[in-house]
């Protein structure tokens, strides 16, 4: 048999909702043509072929030319597994907010996990979990991080084709505001006073929320070098309370280091007019 000339692609999952790897299956028009160019050798959600069972053994049949990693690291076994995946992957790309920033499950990083465990499970001692949810880059070197909760289909295809062609993906780090302008959406903050995280949020969604009359809630995480001080001041001006400001940043990309100063900024900012004390 002739060797298969197609590069190999593996898709791996850690703690997540599966939405980012599902994005690959959502490429309905491109899925079958893509498989003519790429050998999808490990993708548990899509295939029961023997290669797909690599998780069990950790003995890996790689190497894989490109590994896409979905999900964050929340167990000691997953720490070991991600190191193995790095060893058997020529290129490793994280897909989505969980793999890139710890995901919504990183809310545990600000709380007592023992309490979380006890709130959900009657016998918490059976549940093996780390105190933190961390991005893949906290454990192994990553070649590229694709943002979003969930990632954008077009960006995913761009990243796969770029890596297979050996070039850098054309995904820029500017803000959602750029996309809003490109889309021709009137600024909802300027026109309607709706609080919007667009100025500090990483582009990629195509500025969806403002187009639907809703402020951006930051599901793509921080842009490159966000001006959080100005953002927090603006959110205050648009009527958000300290608690709401902290909450909106502490959601799908809660553990992004860029968001670290937010609680302090939200607390320092003196409101222009005396506002009612928040209950907590």
């Amino acid at each position, binding site marked *: 048999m002739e060797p298969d000339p197609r590069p190999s692609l593996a898709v791996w999952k850690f703690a997540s909702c*599966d939405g980012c790897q599902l994005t690959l299956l959502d490429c309905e*028009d491109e899925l079958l043509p893509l498989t003519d160019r790429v050998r999808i050798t490990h993708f548990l959600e899509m295939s029961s072929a023997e290669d797909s069972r690599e998780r069990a053994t950790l003995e890996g049949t790689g190497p894989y030319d490109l590994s896409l990693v979905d999900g964050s690291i929340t167990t000691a076994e997953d720490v070991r597994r991600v190191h193995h995946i790095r060893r058997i992957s020529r290129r490793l790309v994280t897909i989505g907010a969980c793999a890139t920033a710890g995901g919504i499950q990183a809310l545990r990083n600000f709380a007592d996990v023992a309490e979380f465990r006890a709130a959900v499970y009657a016998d918490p001692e059976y549940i093996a979990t780390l105190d933190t949810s961390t991005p893949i880059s906290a454990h192994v070197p990553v070649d590229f991080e694709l943002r979003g909760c969930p990632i954008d289909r077009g960006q995913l295809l761009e990243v796969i084709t770029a890596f297979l062609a050996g070039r850098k993906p054309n995904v820029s780090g500017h803000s959602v505001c750029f996309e809003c302008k490109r889309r021709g959406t009137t600024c909802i903050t300027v026109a309607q006073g709706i609080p919007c995280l667009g100025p500090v949020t990483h582009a990629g969604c195509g500025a969806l929320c403002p187009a639907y*009359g809703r402020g951006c809630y930051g599901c793509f995480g921080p842009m490159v070098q966000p001006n959080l001080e100005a953002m927090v001041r603006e959110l205050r001006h648009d009527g958000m309370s300290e608690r*709401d400001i902290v909450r909106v940043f502490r959601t799908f990309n809660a553990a992004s280091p860029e968001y670290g100063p937010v609680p302090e900024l939200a607390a320092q900012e003196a409101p222009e007019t005396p506002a009612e004390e928040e209950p907590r």
Partner: protein
Amino acid sequence: MSHRGSRVLRLDALARVEGEAALHLAVRDGTVAEARLRIYEPPRFFEAFLVGRGHGEPPDITSRICGICPVAYQTTACQAIERACGVTVDEPLVELRRLLYYGEWIESQSLHIHLLHAPDFLGHPSAVELAREHRAAVERGLRIKQAGNAIMEQLGGRAIHPINVRIGGFYHVPAPAELAPLADRLCRAHDDALETVRWVAGFDFPDAEYHGPLMAMRDPGRYAIDSGTPAVMAAGVGSNGSTPVRALPVEEFERHVVERQVPHSTALVSELDGHHYLTGSLARYAVSGRWLHPSALDAAREAGLGDPATGAVCRNPFRSIIVRAVEVAHAVAEALRIIDAYEPPSRSYVAVPPRPATGCAATEAPRGLLYHRYAMDADGTLTLARIVPPTAQNQSAIEDDLRRQVQSRLDRPGEPPGDEELTALCERAVRNHDPCISCSAHFLDLTVERG
């Protein structure tokens, strides 16, 4: 192996399901001693970190429990909070929500049929290999799936974790011209869906029967998805036309459905009045089959499911693929009906002012009944969140189904089955139920123990 009938089988990672789980099967002296579904998906603690959030947040946050059925989470969360706040949403907004939910149904069910389940019947490891032999069928499936995604993208903003849903309704209600282009796509999808019913009806179905109770939402006159009351069809009721169904008011759900923790799983295991039970396509078809859209009713009859108009029940889990295909035809027809009749509502949402209260709701995620309950204080800060997802409810029934199917294979005369055959049988048995594992962790490796 000391005895021909004693062994242990392990399957460390179940493929073609949403999320991650393992199986452990112990056979002693030719009898299945243990069949365990081990959900090892790491816990993500949604119920814990919802506490302290605002009452407007659960639709966005709980959608992140599952990328395959976010609308089920959004819809159920909205309904539970609206009920707590004593708010009734305008009927045109309810219809729009239903349209979004049909979009998810079409997308998710056709994903399961074509990409996850059909390869089992045609002997392929994945849809990619399946497409080499049945390219037209896979492309047809992807086309239907795309129609569902198109609804979610247009109405919800995107197919995964839609952004246009809020408690009380939507951020933006579409103009008729925004929905009109979906109609052409859905007309094609309706033909494709009926063709899919005929395609899957021709598969070879092993004999199997799930005898236990079935639970699904019931709303007489309608194939209930986002409305109605949980209802239970008793164990053993067959397709004899008489189908006694017991209603279980959603407020009493937690009195009947009790979750308990088992050491082998991060998913809590549910029991209904102390027994395992099944939710999902077989349960919905049993409880509501008579109220399918006429085109889907005809398709069900032609596909050999019996006449749902007279209360036919399908208890063969392998045939759930036909039921799902019929449900897709129904969802497409209903989505078309809503789009044809659409007039923009006068307001995009109804205000939902908080009050100290508790509210619960249940709807039909594609994989089965999903229940939410929230309590909040006067300013809308959540003080409690309870979420009972379909796969956690189905876990015991799936284990019972596994035990039965493996035992029936072991009891068959002739050459005893090898580990490989048993593993394949177990995987198929689990995939029949379309488990959604990320949802339930709070799932498959197979271990067969023969000792």
